[in-house]
């Protein structure tokens, strides 16, 4: 197990290095002065110019420049944003929690609704129910998320007026930032309008989370269904039945854990598409997360924001896909079977 963890850590470091290298070369292709693209300072004074030259080793060889670039970026110096004139790293820390909050709620929603539905569609003997669930998931899988988001905000936000269509919370509420997660912050907030603010934050998150949850939800249902069907045909389910266990305990204790294993693996593979969907959803619902921030940076040709945003998003995806793989190995005794007897 120790060797396995070391190998995963190694994979993480190597992938991150490749990511930094790609960013390093892409920065040189920006249609702007190199020191402007690196630091975000449009009209540097001569001192600033010297500082930038020194920090990024601009007068040295490309290799030295790469090392200097990596050192700067990894120590948190992403330059300043051209539009806001504030450090990119600070802005990044401000928008990341909102994105995590949205992604977490959407993922939770997809799992809580998707897993039981997948189990039901696998176990139900009525063909029409199975077909209905499959048709719904296939529709959800093929609906473009930007269209769905616009449609939802048109129906529930504009025509029915049930839910707010943009932002994280109503501007009336002044909630101090503690964790960055709005739902948590409203709960931690100690004031007269604590619960009103919490409910308002909850209402704000419903529509973006539902929109974002559609894709993982459909995948979860389909994977759970196929895995469950194949598990229920195994001999050990027959053996458990022969031991006289009840149906519920067979499904919950013997079938479901085995069916969730392939699901976990697929969740890891789905992180990339999920992140790009999250960016689109954030733009549609003006969610103050990293996606909306990155897209506005792209529109404004804010080179430092683009670099910082891409770096953060890609690093998060790499980290979580490796984390899921490690979790998969840790949670699943069967995957340890491959390692059994080899090292």
């Amino acid at each position, binding site marked *: 197990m120790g060797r396995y963890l070391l190998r995963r850590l190694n994979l993480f470091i190597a992938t991150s290095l490749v990511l930094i290298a790609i960013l390093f070369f892409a920065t040189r292709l920006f249609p702007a002065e190199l020191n402007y693209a690196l630091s975000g300072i449009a009209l540097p004074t001569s001192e600033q110019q010297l500082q930038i030259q020194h920090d990024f080793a601009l007068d040295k060889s490309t290799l030295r420049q790469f090392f200097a670039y990596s050192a700067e970026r990894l120590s948190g110096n992403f330059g300043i944003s051209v539009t806001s004139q504030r450090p990119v790293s600070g802005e990044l820390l401000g928008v990341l929690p909102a994105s995590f909050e949205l992604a977490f709620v959407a993922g939770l929603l997809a799992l809580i609704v998707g897993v039981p539905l997948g189990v039901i569609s696998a176990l139900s003997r009525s063909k029409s129910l199975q077909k209905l669930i499959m048709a719904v998931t296939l529709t959800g899988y093929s609906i473009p998320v930007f269209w769905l988001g616009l449609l939802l905000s048109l129906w529930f936000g504009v025509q029915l007026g049930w839910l707010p269509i943009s932002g994280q919370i109503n501007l009336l509420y002044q909630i101090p930032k503690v964790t960055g997660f709005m739902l948590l912050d409203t709960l931690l907030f100690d004031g007269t309008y604590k619960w009103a603010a919490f409910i308002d934050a909850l209402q704000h998150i419903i529509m973006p989370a539902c929109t974002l949850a559609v894709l993982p939800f459909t995948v979860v249902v389909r994977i759970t269904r196929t895995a469950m069907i194949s598990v229920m045909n195994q001999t050990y389910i027959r053996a458990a039945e022969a*031991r006289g*266990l009840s149906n519920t305990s067979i499904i919950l204790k013997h079938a479901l854990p085995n069916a969730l294993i392939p699901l976990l693996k697929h969740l890891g593979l789905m992180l990339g598409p999920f992140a790009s969907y999250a960016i689109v959803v954030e733009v549609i619902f003006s969610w103050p997360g990293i996606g909306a921030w990155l897209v506005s940076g792209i529109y404004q040709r804010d080179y430092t924001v683009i670099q910082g945003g891409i770096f953060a998003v890609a690093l998060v995806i790499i980290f979580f896909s490796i984390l899921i793989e490690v979790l998969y190995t840790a949670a699943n005794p*069967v995957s*340890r079977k491959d390692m059994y007897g080899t090292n």
Partner: protein
Amino acid sequence: MPLLDVRNLTIELDTPQGPAKALERVSLTINAGEMHGLIGESGSGRSLLARAILGIHDPSWKITADRLMWDGKNLMDMPRQERRSLMGDEISMIFQDPSGSFNPTYTVGHQLLEAIPKGNKWTFWRHTREKKLLAQKWLHKVGIKNPRKVFYSYPWELSEGECQKVMIAMALAKQPRLLIADEPTASMEPSTQAQIYRLLTQLNQLQNVTVLLISHELDTLSNWCNRMTVLYCGQVMESGPTAELMSQPNHPYTKALLDNMPDYSTNVRHKKLMPTLPGSVPALRHLPIGCRLGPRCPEARRQCVKQPMLSHYKDRYFACHFPYQDEVDDDDTLT
């Protein structure tokens, strides 16, 4: 009253070519305390019969039976849940595929504990501990050398033979009244095989566990069983006490089986053909009508296109229109 009484059980499976009768009018009577052998080639529906008795069949199977009685209770019209718990308490089964019969995500010990009945003689804080000790005692009893280590192992860490032994321990831990052993020694070395059979016999004799032993090895079965039922292609051919069956088979198929047993005592010519029935076992979608042995049977005649009913003579049962009877002896006395 027999412990298990199956009369004319038919199982229809859905195949792409339409429904096929995998088992046709199978009758099986098992008395309490006996060791009953069920012999048949692979594909003859032995495991299907076992699963139908236990009620762990696939929902797509169509099962009909004139009678399916367990100790005076009719299993056919018993609610599913009641039947499941009754079967769990009173019948245990040793499955054919030992390593596949364990959930790979739990240790075998965890699954063994599920099979141990709730005893209320222990106070609750010692319950788990006592249960574990009991489980390890069972493991030791079936011939596992380090029960503690095996108890905490995952099924894929054990060899096939060890899995089989744990499976047997699991079946025994319930202290069932009937034990269905579906090829219990399929993946074991001969010395362990004998050990397992001895264990089964011991249980049968000391604890009065009825055993239904399913196998394809006629010579081993004949060593350990009191009675035998011969199955061919989903039909019962013959049933009766082992000794009589072996010395005087009534049915052509049983006779063929006995003749096919290699005899090492006499000198056999080099590359001499072994005596076998002509042809091979028909596939499920090309089943002959009537007696399924018909096309291969040396005694087949026109009547054989009708399935013969199971007729009995003293305590022997056979399903054949032209059985081998004791006529030869009578002829001898006449001359």
